[in-house]
């Protein structure tokens, strides 16, 4: 005869860590069965006992992270991240189809996946990180295709091989992005250094996004409807991601290089300046990628007000990154100064 919780125990034994099962899961299920028997045929009490018992198991698995210590935690991480990314993609696509808003979920997940992998699976090999990022991206791509393909208007526009080619192109893009993300997620650098630097880049990207959103809200899109809000959110995500990517590729090497070249620790104001002055790099990166660099430069040169308006988020966020990096450097240098004096 099967008792409540028997199947759950069999599953737990199969997928969870042996110690965790014997010390936590088994006693919790034993309590569930004991309480269910104690109900003595009274349906209400039995139901209450079952609800309490299963709630305890859920709490054990999620709240106490038992599930993340299991041998299948990497698969679970990919499924959860892929699920969150796909939900985000569908939500954004259903509210604002087309434009950068539709792709912002991919950008968010491209940043989130390596960070989560780095936290949950420290010391991952390049191959593991690549496969995990690729799986998340492919899961989101499959959901995107499944979402778009049933639309009859889209289906009749292209021949069948068009879909095959575009699917292969999308898979290639995801693989290339995964290779980059895996390189970041599996770099042999001390965990604390990577975390501190990424947190500083993220803080400056948030400053940028907030400043950019404020600019647009104030100047361009009154009154704010739901569709406009989603469109703005998409743009903010894309540009903040671009800003973070440029920070990692350009700002960090320049600012950290400046610290290494000069023998004395640089003061905050000194390091804040190059951060602020590097703003044209991310500002012009997107028009360059879109092939509109000439027209953008002409427009900005002809309108100083717009130039100031557009530059402000980049200048502020770059300055914040320089200031934060100098702050870490000053803190690290302080004990040496005290000892030598």
């Amino acid at each position, binding site marked *: 005869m099967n*008792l409540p919780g028997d199947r759950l125990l069999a599953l737990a034994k199969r997928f969870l860590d042996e110690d965790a099962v014997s010390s936590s899961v088994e006693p*919790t299920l034993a*309590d569930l069965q004991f309480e269910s028997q104690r109900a003595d045929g009274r349906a209400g009490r039995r139901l209450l006992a079952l609800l309490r018992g299963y709630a305890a198991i859920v709490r054990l698995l999620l709240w106490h992270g038992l599930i993340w210590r299991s041998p299948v935690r990497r698969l679970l991480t990919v499924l959860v991240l892929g699920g969150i990314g796909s939900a985000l993609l569908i939500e954004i696509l259903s509210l604002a189809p087309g434009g950068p808003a539709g792709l912002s979920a991919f950008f968010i997940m491209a940043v989130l996946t390596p960070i989560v992998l780095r936290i949950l699976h420290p010391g991952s090999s390049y191959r593991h990180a690549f496969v995990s990022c690729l799986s998340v991206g492919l899961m989101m791509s499959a959901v995107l295709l499944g979402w778009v393909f049933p639309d009859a208007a889209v289906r009749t526009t292209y021949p069948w091989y068009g879909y095959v080619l575009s699917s292969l192109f999308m898979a290639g893009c995801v693989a290339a992005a995964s290779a980059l993300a895996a390189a970041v997620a599996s770099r042999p650098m001390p965990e604390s250094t990577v975390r501190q630097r990424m947190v500083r880049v993220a803080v400056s990207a948030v400053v940028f996004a907030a400043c950019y959103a404020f600019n647009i809200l104030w100047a361009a899109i009154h009154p704010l409807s739901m569709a406009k809000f989603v469109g703005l959110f998409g743009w903010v995500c894309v540009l903040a991601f671009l800003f973070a990517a440029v920070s990692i590729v350009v700002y960090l090497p320049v600012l950290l290089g400046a610290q290494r070249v000069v023998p004395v620790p640089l003061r905050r104001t000194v390091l804040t300046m190059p951060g602020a002055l590097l703003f044209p790099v991310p500002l012009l990166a997107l028009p360059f990628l879109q092939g509109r660099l000439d027209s953008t430069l002409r427009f900005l040169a002809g309108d100083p007000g717009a130039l100031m308006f557009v530059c402000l988020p980049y200048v502020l966020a770059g300055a914040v990154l320089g200031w934060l990096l100098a702050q870490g450097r000053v803190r690290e240098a302080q004990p040496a100064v005290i000892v030598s004096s």
Partner: protein
Amino acid sequence: MSAVPLPTLPGIERLILELLVSNSPMFGLQMVESSAGRLKRGSVYVTLGRMEQKGFVESEQEQRAAGAIGLPRRLYRPTALGERALEAWSALHRALAWEGRS
């Protein structure tokens, strides 16, 4: 000064030790029921497992009558180390409370 790391005794572990010292042995569910909501069903065995690793409590499966159905439950009792840790903490608490008043 000794460099041996001392085991810590957080509030929940203290509560479990207090319950076990006064009513040993106990099942996990009994501890939850007599803690007035301070212990949760989904947490108690994680805490008990941690305390077992620290050497504060020990456990054994309950002895069951022949033909009993269902999973056997675990009975917990405090170890000598657990009782000493609780005594030491109580003494420290009394001393600091006295300091606080003076």
